C-alpha cells in the first residue's frame, strides 16, 4: 500500500520535472537557455484549465502546450532576432507568470488565489492494480525518448547540436541558425507548457497562484544533472520525485522524526541530487555557443 503509493507518487512527481527538462535540454543543445520555465509552467497550467473547461481535457493539454510554445516563441524571438539577454527575458517570464496567473484567476473565475478543476475535464487516469496512473507519465517518458532520438538520430538533431556548438559552421553548412534555435525555443516552451497542463488538469486538479512551486528551477537543475541527455532527465526526475515522496512519507513517522527533525528529512531530495551530481555525474560540458546570440555580420 505504502510502497505502491510511494512509487506512483514518484512517477507523477517525475512528470513535470522530466518533461520540462527534456524540452529545455533540446533548447540548450541549440544554444538557447530559458530560465523562465517556472513562469511557463504556471501560465500554461492556468490556460490549460481555461481550455479544458471550454473543450475538455485534451483541449486543455493542447492549450497548455500552445501557451508554452507561444511564450517560448517570444523568448526565442527576443534572444535570437533581437539578440536579447536570454537570462533577463527568462527572469521576466517568471515575474510575469506570477502576476498574470494571480490576476487571471480573479478575472476568469472571480475567485482569488485558486480554482478547482472540475472532475469532468481532468485528464482521465489509467487504473492500475496499484492505483490510478496518469497517462502523462507515459507521455513524459515517450517524449524524453523521442527527444533523445530526435537529437541523436536525425538530421534535425545534427543541426541542433551544430547550432549550439558552432553556429558559424552550421551557417556555412547551409543551416538556418535562427530557425533551428527558434525551433528549440518553441519546443522547450511547448514541453514546459504541457508539463504545466499536467500540473493543473491532471496531477493536482487545481490551479493556484503558485502551482509550479519551484519545479521550473528543479527542472533547470535537472537539465544540468542530465548533462543534456533526455534519458538522464528521466533518471533525474525520478530521483527527485522518489526522494521527495520518501521524505514526506518519512516525515509522518514519529519514530524517525524524533531522531532526525523532519526538516532534515525534507532536505533529502536536494541533498541526494547534489550527491549524485557530485559523485556520479560530475563535470557537464555545455555547448560552446550556449547562451550567446549569433551574429553573422
Amino acid at each position, binding site marked *: 500500500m505504502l510502497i505502491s503509493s510511494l512509487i506512483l507518487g514518484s512517477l507523477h512527481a517525475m512528470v513535470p520535472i522530466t518533461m520540462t527538462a527534456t524540452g529545455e535540454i533540446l533548447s540548450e543543445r541549440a544554444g538557447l537557455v530559458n530560465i523562465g520555465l517556472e513562469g511557463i509552467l504556471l501560465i500554461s497550467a492556468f490556460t490549460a484549465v481555461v481550455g479544458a473547461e471550454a473543450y475538455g481535457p485534451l483541449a486543455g493539454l493542447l492549450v497548455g502546450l500552445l501557451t508554452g510554445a507561444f511564450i517560448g516563441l517570444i523568448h526565442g524571438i527576443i534572444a535570437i532576432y533581437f539578440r536579447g539577454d536570454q537570462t533577463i527575458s527568462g527572469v521576466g517570464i517568471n515575474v510575469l507568470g506570477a502576476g498574470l496567473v494571480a490576476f487571471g484567476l480573479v478575472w476568469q473565475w472571480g475567485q482569488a488565489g485558486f480554482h478547482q478543476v472540475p472532475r469532468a475535464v481532468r485528464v482521465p487516469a489509467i487504473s492500475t492494480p496499484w492505483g490510478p496512473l496518469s497517462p502523462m507519465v507515459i507521455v513524459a517518458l515517450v517524449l524524453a525518448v523521442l527527444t533523445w532520438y530526435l537529437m541523436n538520430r*536525425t*538530421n534535425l538533431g545534427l543541426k541542433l547540436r*551544430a547550432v549550439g*556548438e558552432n553556429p558559424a559552421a552550421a551557417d556555412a553548412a547551409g543551416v538556418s541558425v535562427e530557425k533551428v534555435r527558434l525551433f528549440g525555443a518553441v519546443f522547450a516552451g511547448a514541453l514546459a507548457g504541457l508539463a504545466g497542463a499536467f500540473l493543473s488538469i491532471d496531477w493536482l486538479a487545481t490551479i493556484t497562484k503558485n502551482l509550479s512551486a519551484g519545479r521550473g528551477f528543479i527542472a533547470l537543475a535537472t537539465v544540468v544533472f542530465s548533462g543534456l541527455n533526455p534519458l538522464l532527465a528521466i533518471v533525474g526526475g525520478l530521483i527527485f520525485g522518489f526522494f521527495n515522496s520518501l521524505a514526506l512519507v518519512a516525515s509522518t513517522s514519529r519514530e524517525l522524526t524524533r531522531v532526525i527533525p523532519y526538516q532534515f528529512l525534507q532536505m533529502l531530495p536536494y541533498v541526494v541530487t547534489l550527491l549524485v551530481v557530485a559523485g556520479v555525474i560530475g563535470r557537464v560540458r555545455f555547448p560552446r555557443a550556449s547562451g550567446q546570440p549569433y551574429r553573422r555580420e
Partner: protein
Amino acid sequence: MPNRSAPRQGAAMGAPGPAAGPAKQDRLQMLGITKVYPDGTRALDNVDLIVRRGEVHGLLGENGAGKSTLMKILSGILPLTAGRILLDGREIHLRSTTDALAYGIGMVHQHFSLVPDFTALENVVLGRGGNLSAPAYAEARQRMQRLMDETGLRVPLDTPVEELPVGTQQRIEILKTLDRASDILILDEPTAVLTPQETDRLFDVLRRLAREGTTIILITHKLREVLAITDRVTVLRGGRLVGTRDTAGATAADLARMMVGSERMDISVQRETVAAAEPVLRVENLRVLGDDGNPVVKDVSFEVRAGEIFGIAGVTGNGQSELVEALTGLRAISGGTAYLRGQPVNGKGPRQLYAMGLAHVPEDRHRHGMVAQMTVMENTILGVHHDKRFRRGVPGTLHWGKVRRYARDIVQRFDVVTAGVNAAMRSLSGGNQQKLVVGRELSKAPTLVVAGQPTRGLDVAAAQAIRDLLVGIRNQGQGVLLVSADLDEVMSLSDRIGVMYEGEILAVLSRDEFDRERIGLLMGGVRDESVAG
C-alpha cells in the same frame, strides 16, 4: 586611388598568361560589390571580381582589405549592400549558403567552420536531408571515399574533428566543401596551418580540380604560393579594387607592391652579428604530458643563447605547443629541467616566470593572449596587471591613467591600428591584435621571448613588422625561442633550428646547414641517416 576605369582583363595588365586562352569565358562576375556592415564599416566599395572557368584565381590584400567579406558574399553568408553577381552571364541572388551551394559555390573558411565535437562524417552530413530522417551516413561515407580517392586527401571519418591536427581539419573542410559544391571552390587562407608538404599536396589537388573544370578562388598572404599556383590574381586594398592581373610574369615584389603600395615584402631581416653568449634558456631532458596523459614531449634538450633566435620547426601537433606551454608555466613539467638564466623553471607559474624575464607570445592569441571582449587598454596589462608601475597610492588600486598612457605608448610604438585604447580588442583586425600582443610582451623588457606562430594569418606588412621586432630583440642581445609552422619564416629568422617530430628534436641545425629540403624531410620524421641509408 585605385583605378577602377581600367579594364581588368588581361590586356592592360601586361602579357597574357597561359591561362588566358580564348576558350575560357568568364564563369563568374561580381560587379560593383559594396558591403557596409551594420556598424557602418564600409568593407567593400564598388569592387569587381571576374573569374574564368577552370582557373585558379588568387585574391590578395592586406589584413582587412575585404577579401573574406567578398567571398562570404559569394558564398551566401553575407548579404551585399550593392552590386550584382553573374554566373555564366546570368544574374543570381544569394540569400543563404543553401542558395550558393545550389549554384555549386562552396567556401572553405578562414576560421574553421567545422563543428568541433562532430566527426568528419557528421560535419559532411550536416545541413543535408530531411529534418526527421536519419542522417545519410552510409552514402556520405561512400562519397567521401570517392572524393578521397580522387583528390588524394585522406582524413579519418569517425574521429571528432577537435581531436585531429589542424592540417587534417583543413583537409576535412576542403573535402566537405567539395562534397557540397564543386563548381566554384573558394579557399580562404587554407595554407595558414599546413606544412610545406601538405601545402604542396593541396596545390596538386587544386590544379587537378581546375583542370577538370572547377573554378578556384584562393585567398592567401603567402606570395610564393600565389606565384606557384594561381593563373590570375585580383588585389584589394582598403575595400577597393586595385586590379587584376595574370600571375605569369609577375614577381613577388610586383604583387607586394600592389598590395601595400610599396616595396616592403620578402622575408629578409636585418641581422647584426651578435657574439653568441651564455644560454638564457637551457632545456635538459624535458618531458611533458599531453591533455590525454600521454607523453608528447620526450626528453628534449636544447639551449637558447643570448642574442640568438632559436627556431623550432615542425608540423603542427608534434609537441611544440606543449613544449612552449611547459616552458611558460602553463603546463606541468613531468620530467627533466629547464633553466631560465640558470634558475629552474619547474613548478613556477607564469607570474613568477615573467618576473624572471620571460615574455610569451602565445600561439593561439584568441585563446591565451588576449581577451577579445575587453578593451585594448585592459589587454595591454594582461599578465603585468600586478605591476607596481600601474598602482596608485591607495593599496591595490590600479592607476588607469598610467595604464592608458602605457597602452597609448605601445599602440604608438608598435604601430597598432585601432580606434583608440578604449576600443574593444575584438574590433581590431587579426594583425593588429597580434601586434598589440607582441608589443605588450616585448615591453616587459624580457631576457627571453618565447613566440609561438607569431605571424600566422597576418598580411605581408604586419608579418614583416613582427619579424622585425623579434630580430630587434635578438639584436639587443636577448634570446628568442621561435616556434612556427611557416618554414620560410623559421629559416629566415633563426640562427639555429631544431626540428621537432613526435615530441623529439630530431636535429639542431645551424644557419649554414639550413636547407628547405632537408628540414622538410626531418619535419616528416625522416632522419638524415635514413636518407643516407
